[in-house]
């Protein structure tokens, strides 16, 4: 018997055309049609099919049915006559063309933006836009929105890194949704100075003047990032209260374990971790009270939609981490927070482009200039890439365009089999993003350590439901293995990473997870990794957006319990875990 599971059965029928689903709602059933269908078939097709004897066997599946003696004799006769018959299992069915179902199949609850069966922006001929000279992310967003598959190729060019130099097919070509658009992206030249003048640089320079305002340091100057979460939340509330005119923005309020040396530098340490956990009581007490929710609702004009948990483990003693609170605005399509982080951590050109794009986008959403100014000033500084990566990882969940988009192109590699297999054994995970350090694969390292990142990483998304590695963008859980041994990774001195800081792991958890599963997952992770955590960042991200009041409450489930137990695990006091 095969290992058919409900998930696989679901997947088999996941991408049926929308009109078939519509039939379930609208169409009636014709008894005549049914009776005709249920009659013993008389036509030639059925007569032929009746000669097929289905054989279930243990051999590797090859081709076709064993046919009856009559048909077999006929076949032998045909062979004798020199008539060869080639059966190609993969030939397309020209009568009923079948879409490529599994390309977009997902068991996640998210509807793919490009789902050709549920939205109307695809399944028709698409005129390919001109993506040349656009920022890669921008082009990818647009192309995905049009339902195109993207293939990225990096080429040397005098253009700035991340700028599309050419595309195939070219602009104006008509293609169908689901077809592949190849973008040739500049990997940059040596001179990527933001002062280099090009046509677009005019605009860049124009927007550069606002860049520093994204990085106010007032929040960072606090003596200790363990300032109570309540304060953090209130600070954020004040900052964003005036920006609620537009729909669909989300604020993340986090608490973390970073400490500070009073010089814009925050340290992660076990002591700070303990401290912030202790001080988080106030936060949770506040959160658990209805007035807290009302407070958020009142201040934001809306309420809490859901809560994420995030823990970053560090084996190092210290990390330069200047953020004690994050305020991230994003839209379900365009993650502005990610743009900002990309802007911060990529070259200046990208940053300027993204900031400009952000502003344009905010204007399009209806934000006033004063609102945008407030947002700019509410940004906290994240000066080091490590921290930016950590924060960016928060944005993985549920969003199509995430920070590591560029890296999800690697084929399965045997060097990481053990890692993935081991990870795959962790509890009941269904999706897992795995990032491995470059040392595991020199080829990847060579190809993808061109300065854009601190080092190449393998990125897999493993769908354990049907055991395949694929680019699955709607993971519920992300596990990021950066390294478990500081010797495993070569830091790129260009970015000045403190070599003793090892970003060990990152886990984000979203809704729909039973907290017992989450706890077990963490325990397994810890056991597998055999880590002795020296510091950790624990972030609880509360999404505050325009969620209607009637939908808020069900999203608030078990936050405190989960948080507590995560803390226990991080601190090694999980003995009480049931």
């Amino acid at each position, binding site marked *: 018997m095969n290992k058919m599971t409900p998930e696989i059965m679901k997947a088999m029928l996941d991408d049926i055309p929308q009109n078939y689903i519509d039939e379930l709602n609208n169409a009636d059933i014709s008894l005549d049609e049914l009776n005709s269908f249920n009659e013993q078939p008389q036509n030639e097709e059925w007569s032929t099919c009746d000669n097929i004897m289905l054989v279930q066997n243990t051999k590797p599946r090859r081709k076709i049915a064993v046919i009856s003696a009559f048909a077999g004799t006929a076949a032998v006769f045909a062979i004798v006559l020199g008539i060869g018959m080639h059966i190609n299992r993969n030939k397309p069915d020209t009568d009923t063309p079948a879409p490529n179902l599994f390309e977009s199949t997902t068991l996640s609850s998210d509807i793919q933006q490009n789902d050709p069966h*549920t939205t109307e922006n695809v399944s028709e001929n698409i005129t390919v836009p001109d993506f040349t000279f656009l920022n890669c992310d921008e082009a990818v967003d647009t192309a995905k929105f049009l339902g195109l598959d993207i293939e990225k190729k990096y080429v040397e060019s005098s253009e700035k890194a991340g700028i599309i130099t050419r595309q195939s097919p070219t602009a104006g070509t008509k293609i169908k949704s689901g077809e592949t658009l190849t973008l040739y992206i500049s990997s940059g030249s040596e001179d990527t100075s933001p002062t280099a003048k090009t046509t677009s640089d005019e605009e860049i320079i124009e927007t550069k003047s606002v860049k520093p305002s994204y990085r106010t340091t007032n929040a960072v100057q606090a003596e200790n990032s363990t300032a109570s979460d309540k304060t953090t939340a209130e600070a954020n509330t004040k900052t964003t209260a005036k920006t609620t005119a537009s729909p669909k923005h989300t604020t993340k309020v986090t608490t973390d374990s970073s400490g500070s040396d009073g010089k814009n530098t925050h340290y992660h340490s076990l002591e700070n971790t303990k401290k912030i956990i202790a001080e988080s009581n106030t936060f949770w007490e506040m959160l658990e009270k209805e007035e807290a929710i009302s407070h958020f609702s009142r201040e934001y004009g809306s309420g809490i939609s859901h809560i994420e948990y995030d823990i970053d483990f560090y084996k190092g003693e210290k990390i330069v981490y200047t953020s004690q609170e994050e305020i991230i605005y994003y839209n379900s399509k365009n993650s502005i927070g990610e743009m900002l982080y990309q802007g911060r951590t990529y070259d200046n050109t990208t940053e300027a482009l993204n900031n400009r794009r952000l502003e344009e986008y905010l204007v399009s959403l209806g934000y006033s200039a004063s609102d945008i100014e407030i947002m700019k000033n509410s940004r906290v500084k994240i000066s080091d890439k490590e921290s930016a990566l950590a924060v960016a990882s928060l944005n993985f969940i549920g969003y199509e365009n995430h920070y590591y988009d560029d890296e999800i192109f690697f084929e399965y590699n045997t060097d990481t089999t053990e890692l993935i297999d081991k990870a795959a054994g962790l509890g009941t995970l269904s999706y897992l993003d795995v990032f491995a350090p470059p040392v595991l694969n020199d080829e990847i390292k060579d190809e993808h350590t061109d300065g854009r990142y601190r080092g190449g990483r393998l990125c897999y998304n493993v769908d354990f439901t049907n055991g395949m590695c694929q680019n699955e963008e709607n993971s519920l859980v992300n596990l990021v293995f950066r390294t478990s041994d500081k010797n495993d990774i070569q830091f790129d001195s260009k970015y000045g990473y403190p070599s003793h800081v090892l970003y060990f792991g990152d886990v984000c958890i979203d809704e729909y997870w039973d907290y017992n599963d989450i706890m077990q997952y963490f325990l397994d992770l810890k056991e597998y990794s055999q880590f002795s955590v020296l510091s950790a960042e624990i972030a609880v991200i509360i999404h505050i957006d325009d969620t209607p009041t009637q939908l808020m409450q069900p999203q608030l489930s078990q936050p405190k319990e989960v948080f507590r137990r995560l803390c226990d695990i991080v601190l090694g006091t999980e003995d009480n875990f049931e």
Partner: protein
Amino acid sequence: MEDNDIITEFEQRNEDALSHTTEKYGKTIHKIAENILGNTHDADEIRNDALMKLWSTIPPQHPRSLFAYIAVIVRNIAYDKCRADKRKKRYGEQVQIALDEFSECIPSDFDVEGHTDSRQLSSEIQAFLGTLPQSSRIIFLQRYWAMMPVADIAEKYGINVNTVKTTLRRTREKLRIHLAKEGFYE
């Protein structure tokens, strides 16, 4: 209320969209979720989650069919929830029954976890659905896509239970044959 009007409400961030959606499709949502999850309480949660998903995805999405859109959402969320609850084996009874039936169509040695094979099989099933008379397709999908019990299908469409069973059996047989012709059986 027409679907387009409801969608417009979503796009205008009018919370009435939620009540109008519930009014029009609440029972359907609940039924699909209940069939997959096997209990009413969880189905209520799914309804909220589905509404939340609608709220957060429209805009930018503009579904051509609100029913199809929300049905897919509900089905996905329900399966997600089941998967999360896997340790408790909380799939609805109908899922297990339908699974047994549906498995009959799939070759015993089929590598259900193989990416290529799964994709091919899924494509063939979709192609097969296109060959079916509409009535048979509806019954097949109500049973194996929406997990509707046979009796409920019969009641919904005012036909005999045995007719439903016969149709399903016939469709499964046809699917097996279709797959055999496409090389999925040795």
